[in-house]
């Protein structure tokens, strides 16, 4: 699943470590998410959306890229 965590994070001037601390995961998990190697759970996706001050999950994660 594609996402724009990196862009939104840079726009908000938040470091990977700060975002990781905010959503209670490791920095490596944020790196994996940014590279699209790992798909987060719904709970983590909500937390990241909130931490990046976005209204909807779709603003952060590209749900169209998921094959159904």
């Amino acid at each position, binding site marked *: 699943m594609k996402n724009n965590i990196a862009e939104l994070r840079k726009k908000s001037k938040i470091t990977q470590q700060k975002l990781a601390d905010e959503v*209670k*995961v*490791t920095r490596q998990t944020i790196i994996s998410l940014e590279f699209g190697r790992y798909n987060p759970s719904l709970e983590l996706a909500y937390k990241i959306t909130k931490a990046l001050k976005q209204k909807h999950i779709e603003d952060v994660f590209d749900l169209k890229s998921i094959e159904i």
Partner: protein
Amino acid sequence: MTQKHINKKNSVWRYSLATILIIAGIILSYLNIGTEFLGFPSVGSWLIYVGFIMLAIVTLQLMSNKKRIVDERMQFVATKAARITFIGIILFAFVIMVIDGIKPINIAYSYFMSYLICGIILLYLVSYKILLRFN
């Protein structure tokens, strides 16, 4: 339940297990049960040794204040590593059966089990570390 409470509960369990091992070791040594075992003069002395090592590890873990985060990706990777280890055990058992059919393996059961357990732990750790890097 907070992480601190979970750690405390785990430590109590580990301390209890270590104490049981030491007591069992003392009883076995006192009753002279079990001969030479894994380089130790008796099973009892080996159990006492393992018990004390366990006590030391748990105490060191309790003393270190390092904050550990276990997130969902780590749990996901741990499940994958466990699956790989399980498949590894099955493959290893098959290979052992084939080798034993060709040429009978003569090794003490205690040695075999200790090698097997060390191998399982090593395989799990290696696969966990590799998966953690690439997932």
